């Protein structure tokens, strides 16, 4: 029964969060992105104390149900593990000693690196982000290909329910990372159950230790237990020691698989051990407790050390402001990467983003792409604005709404209209009106604020003139500029996003037209 509830809830959470990443047609309302916001690492980075509190409280009350139900990477491993049971019929596990030191070292490294070198380690190890990357980079192209196949079939029969969507791999590096993560974790879970969660995953470590003090947990009634070890053979977390009838709760993810297999009915999920007396007399248990206390102490020391280093890192970081002085050159290389509107500054963004690629997946104009070396090694795969396939829609605030980490802060449409992520740079020598003496105006046509405006030039021609103050950096001009190999207009990043000046409206025209004019 407990297992059934766990499986049903896990499937609901897992399917929905997966579909959010795949769903290019916006079939699911954007409010469902809350499923990303309730993930542990995003909640911690965005300082959502309420969500964090609920997750911790849930763990203290019910055990690591977060790992079994809410975490998509956890459920993905269960699915892979389920397949292994279907393929290898006589699959058996055995109790293994836990690798406490390794777990704490990894957790410590993640926390320390979080303050020293941005989110680099966390980026790779956060289970939610790793899962998001797998889905966006590897499975979304497949999903879109499937859609295009259906589109072809249905449209041939005159049914226009489907439409084609471009299939592309946004970043080769992120694609390869996604495949490697998928294969590694898939392989580990196929053969070794929840090894990833109980050795490497930093969230698993935190919640694991919390699980030790949880109120409701799986317990073995030693009076009933005949040490048949059936439960241990079914335990995908390797955490049941059948010889001593004990469960290592730091690794137990509350999958409830053991409860159903026990023929003695010795395993139950309850408030307190029914054989408390026996437990107290059990000396090895006390020794183990001693170990746990040292482990916990180490853990707290690590966290404390990390805490001390915070102010230092903040003091070390300097903001870089760059002035554009490249107007005379024909080729333009961006000095800095452009971060999405609402991300405040490159520094803020790099510190908060763990590259889950939810914003990349949701961006309707395909402006956001995983970076390669734009931010340097610590920002690898973090989203960057690129204007080769599209430009940022003036009224769209979707990335800021879905970002679970607070890397892109939520902004309103009105705030977006005045958020300057970069400034326009015009290279007259490259402009087709200047070089060929023919009409164009594509840049100005796409400019929502008329920061790029066409002014009279000669022979009835018009040529762009720019006003950087009212530019928001949407990239419409750069996207559409037809000149090659070097475009005539670009957007250079603001390292720190600033307010653009509001646009000046034209004078209201009340002239009455009462004739045709010909």
């Amino acid at each position, binding site marked *: 029964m407990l297992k059934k509830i766990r499986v049903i809830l896990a499937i609901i959470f897992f399917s929905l969060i997966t579909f959010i990443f795949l769903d290019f047609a916006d079939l699911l309302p954007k409010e469902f992105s809350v499923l990303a916001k309730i993930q542990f690492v995003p909640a911690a980075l965005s300082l959502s104390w309420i969500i964090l509190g609920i997750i911790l409280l849930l763990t203290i009350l019910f055990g690591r149900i977060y790992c079994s139900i809410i975490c998509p990477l956890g459920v993905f491993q269960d699915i892979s593990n389920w397949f292994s049971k279907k393929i290898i019929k006589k699959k058996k596990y055995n109790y293994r000693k836990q690798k406490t030191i390794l777990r704490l070292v990894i957790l410590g490294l993640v926390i320390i690196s979080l303050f020293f070198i941005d989110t680099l380690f966390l980026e790779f190890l956060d289970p939610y982000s790793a899962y998001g990357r797998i889905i966006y980079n590897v499975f979304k192209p497949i999903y*879109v290909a499937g859609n295009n196949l259906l589109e072809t*079939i249905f449209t041939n029969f005159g049914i226009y329910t489907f439409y084609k969507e471009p*299939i*592309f791999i946004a970043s080769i590096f992120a694609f390869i990372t996604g495949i490697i993560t998928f294969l590694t974790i898939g392989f580990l879970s196929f053969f070794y159950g929840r090894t990833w969660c109980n050795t490497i995953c930093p969230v698993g470590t935190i919640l694991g230790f919390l699980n030790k003090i949880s109120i409701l947990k799986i317990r073995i009634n030693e009076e009933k237990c005949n040490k048949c070890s059936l439960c241990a053979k079914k335990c995908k977390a390797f955490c049941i020691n059948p010889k001593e009838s004990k469960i290592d709760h730091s690794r137990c993810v509350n999958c409830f698989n053991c409860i159903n297999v026990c023929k003695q009915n010795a395993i139950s999920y309850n408030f307190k051990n029914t054989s408390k007396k026996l437990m107290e007399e059990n000396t090895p248990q006390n020794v183990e407790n001693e170990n746990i206390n040292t482990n916990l102490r180490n853990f707290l020391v690590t966290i404390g050390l990390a805490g001390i280093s915070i102010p230092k890192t903040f003091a070390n970081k300097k903001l870089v402001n760059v002035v554009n002085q490249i107007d005379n050159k024909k080729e333009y290389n961006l000095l800095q990467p452009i971060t999405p509107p609402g991300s405040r500054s490159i520094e803020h963004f790099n510190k908060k983003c763990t590259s889950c690629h939810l914003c990349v997946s949701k961006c309707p104009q395909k402006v956001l792409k995983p970076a390669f070396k734009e931010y340097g090694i610590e920002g690898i795969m973090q989203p960057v604005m690129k204007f080769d396939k599209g430009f940022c829609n003036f009224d769209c605030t979707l990335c800021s709404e879905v970002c679970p980490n607070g890397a892109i802060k939520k902004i309103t449409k009105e705030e977006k209209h005045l958020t300057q992520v970069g400034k326009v740079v015009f290279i007259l020598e490259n402009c087709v009106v200047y070089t060929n003496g023919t009409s164009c*105006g594509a840049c100005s046509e796409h400019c*929502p604020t*008329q920061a790029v405006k066409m002014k009279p030039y000669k022979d009835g021609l018009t040529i762009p003139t720019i006003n950087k103050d009212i530019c928001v950096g949407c990239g419409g001009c750069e996207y559409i500029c037809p000149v090659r190999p070097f475009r005539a207009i670009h957007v250079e990043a603001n390292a720190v996003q600033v307010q653009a000046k509001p646009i000046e409206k034209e004078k209201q025209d009340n002239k009455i037209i009462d*004739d045709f*004019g010909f």
Partner: protein
Amino acid sequence: MDRREFLKAIAITGAAFTIKNVGGNMDLFSQTISKSSTDAIGTTSAKYDLVAVMGGEPEVMFQKAIAELGGMSVFVKKGQKIVVKPNIGWDKVPELAGNTNPKLIAEIVKQCLSAGAKEVKVFDNTCDDWKKCYTNSGIETAVKKAGGIMVPAHEESYYREISLPNAKKMKKAKIHEAILDCDAWINVPVLKNHGGANLTISMKNLMGIVWDRRYFHNNDLQQCIADMCTLDKKAILNIVDAYRVVKTNGPRGKSETDVVNPKGLFMSQDIVAVDTAAANFFNQIREMPLDHVAHIGNGEALNLGTTKLESLNVKRIKL
């Protein structure tokens, strides 16, 4: 780059590739059939060369204008596949006049269907995100309600290359399959100021049936617009929506003060004449010499129509 990445993705999903190809062949097959049945243009003999209407709601002005030309059944025959091509370029609401008025489009779709059209498809190759444009312009809702079909145009595979032998600079172009496969199509632009071409009307609206709009801008925009209009399959009607007009900062406009509401509508089979009429109308709102809208003159030079409105039989209606 697109293509390479596309192929990479396809390599993963091997199966899709083969079936997609089959789809492509089927498209070619249907093209050969529909091409032979194209005969609408040139066979109609209307009472007037050009109808100009002022002072009414968009759909009312259209009803008056089409009645003067003998009704929609003069142009649309029973069982025909029709395409209506508005300007849906921008993520703008109707009040900001970035796109053709949805009420006008709905009325045209309705009249095509009641004239016996088998289907009426509507599309545009938009500048802003196509889904936002289709939705926020109000056109998608209006068309669906009127019984038409909105078809997407945001992917290169919806376009097929054709040659333009009579063109001066743009000798070939990739045209949307809906236009290539239909029996007849109706061009329904909105009159707007345009930063590059100075005005965008019927001729410029043809950019929305082409995949690569950068080619126009890079190779003499004003000539390429005229070149595009040398397409064999001419629109059976050009209906210019001048109900609301973006007078400044076009074609997109930056605020509501760029928009005026002169309530006009122009209709003709002659694309050059209808654009000349609309340009003259615009000239009253803001000075716009006809020679600055160079694509109109370029169109006349390619014998696509006449700018000499005095030589035409024009019907003027004020409501």
